[in-house]
């Protein structure tokens, strides 16, 4: 897949996963107003793996929340797969979040009193998938992230890395086209970080569009493209800094940040992808 690297290029709309035009985000009003984003233009193509970097307060998380339809921009246009998100109603936005987006949070955001399996199955429930099918798909997603044996554990019984893998399984379970991860490894130790990054790599290899926010270089090193924010503006947009750009789907060389001999998660083979079918029901687009 050939991927246009330059936002200035103007590809056909359906060839664009994400398109931001002149996006501003202002919190508050008057003298106390905080300009979190000051005119963001960004285009992400299907299958791209983008890392968004920047110091804290640069507007990374605000950008992520807008991309995830968790927040709406004050000004500007956000097109998701060619659809202007501002034109969508409340329930249509819920469907977009349910079917087209998979969100991975820094703080996992699992529901504490529910088991790992129930957490992963929740998006399927909101998509009206029947109960037996839900369990089957959610179990397969847990298998994929290597937690097949932890299905009945509640989040408090899991380590941070395991919780984040449950959250990734939840983000994957609806087979979304776009996966957004907001500092997914921010609360994890280095071992768990490797597991999570390997999972994201394997998703990128399936040509899913991935946007990951991070301030860690070893996380950004896995991405195809690194967008750097400062003070609410994009100050740099380039192919990943370490090593040559790696075409999506090509065999991956061992990254410099990966410890030699560190195994991939044993139970994350791509052969497991088959049971992960997009559930019945229509998408929003």
């Amino acid at each position, binding site marked *: 897949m050939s991927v246009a690297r330059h936002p200035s290029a103007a590809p056909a709309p359906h060839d664009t996963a994400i398109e931001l035009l002149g996006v501003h985000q202002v919190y508050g009003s008057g003298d106390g107003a905080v300009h979190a984003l000051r005119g963001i233009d960004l285009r992400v193509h299907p299958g791209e793996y983008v890392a968004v970097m920047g110091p804290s307060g640069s507007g990374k998380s605000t950008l992520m*929340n807008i991309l*995830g*339809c*968790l*927040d*709406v921009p004050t000004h500007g246009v956000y097109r998701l797969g060619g659809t202007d998100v501002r034109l969508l109603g*409340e*329930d249509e936005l*819920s*469907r977009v*979040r*349910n*079917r087209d987006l998979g*969100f991975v*949070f820094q703080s996992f*955001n*699992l*529901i504490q*009193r529910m088991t790992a399996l129930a957490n992963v199955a*929740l*998006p399927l*429930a*909101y*998509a*009206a998938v029947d*109960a037996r099918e839900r369990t089957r798909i959610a179990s397969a997603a847990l298998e994929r992230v290597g937690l097949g044996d932890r299905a009945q554990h509640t989040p408090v019984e899991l380590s941070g890395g395991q919780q984040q893998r449950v959250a990734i399984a*939840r983000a994957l379970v*609806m087979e979304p086209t776009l996966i957004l991860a907001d500092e997914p490894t921010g609360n994890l130790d280095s071992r768990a970080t490797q597991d999570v990054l390997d999972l994201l790599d394997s998703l990128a290899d399936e040509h899913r569009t991935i946007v990951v926010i991070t301030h860690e270089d070893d996380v950004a090193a896995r991405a195809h493209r690194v967008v750097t924010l400062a003070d609410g503006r994009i100050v740099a947009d380039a192919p990943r800094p370490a090593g040559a750009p790696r075409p999506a789907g090509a065999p991956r060389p061992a990254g410099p940040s990966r410890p030699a001999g560190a195994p991939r998660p044993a139970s994350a083979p791509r052969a497991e992808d088959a049971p992960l079918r997009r559930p019945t029901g229509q998408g929003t687009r």
Partner: protein
Amino acid sequence: MRPGEVLLSALRGVTANKLRSVLTLLGVMIGVAAVILLLAVGNGSARQVAASIEALGTNTLTVRPESGATAGSSTRPLTVAVTQELGRAGLGHVGTVVPEVDASATAVAGTVSETGTQVIGTTPAYFTTSTATIGSGQAFPDAAARDAVIGTTLAQELFPGQSPVGRSVSVAGIPFTVTGELAEQSSVGFQDPNSEIVAPLATVQADLSGYGPVSDVLVSATSADAVTQAEDEVTIELDQLLGATAADQPFTVNSAGTLLQTRQASAQSFTVLLAAVAAISLLVGGIGVTNVMLVTVTERTREIGIRKAIGATRGAILGQFLAEAAILTLTGGVLGVVVAVVGAQFPVDGTTPVIVWSSIPMALGVSVAIGLFFGVYPAARAAGMRPIQALRTI
């Protein structure tokens, strides 16, 4: 999600925090049970009053001298002589006229003594006009004999396990012969009518009360329908006999009907009082439920944010909280009804509660409405937030 699943997941939500759920349930239960039970007690006592007044007989009038006569009044007192004139007046709707004089004395038989025993001096017509009837033995002759008829409670106390008829009882040191025992009567007021002594009028006047005004005059109407006419006739005749006017009347005439009305009015206000207490307890219960619901939803705003972030619609979130609130309030409400219905089987201080059936849907409706509103309204607010706002909530 299908309705069954929504209910199932709501049930899981409810059981996730057992203590809080139990407290909510308890709040609704107590509120509902209190309303139904208190109204049942009020209703029960009102019915009891009505029943005991009906037992008085519906064709008798009671004439009672006003104790605090108007200053400067020129009227004659209501004495036995006046009542005898009233009896001889030949009023069309009046049957018998029975004067009563009261005294209080100590009754002694053997080693048992009863202080403060009420002694009624009257004519033998008393036993046919009032609710006091002869149970065993016989009435006394209409003469100044030292004969007496005594109530059942007094008979039990003075002559335990024996018939009092033919025995002697000393009243204020004067020996009376017991000629009969009264049949048991139901109690209307605070005094037990089963512990009184009834003796001839002349004897009681001579020995105990003196020759002052009577304490009561019982007047029987010729029929239950003639009570109103009899009341008018007695009032006019007494005004003439005593030289009284409507403005300066030293007596009152009450029928069982008016007595019934007054008593029912007081029972009514008692019920209203209880209803007010019940309403307050329902309100307090409702506030408790509101509190728990608000805390629950506030605590779970983050959960609402998570659910919205993974695609829950506003409707789905509302449905979940509605189902949880409905489970809690309905279960509590139904338990409250059960507690009230069971509790109403037990008499409270001699009064058997009678459930007012319309209070059940009322109490249930109000508490369920409160629970649902305060369970759903804050959830609706949270569900209407942008997901990121809900997620930022701790």
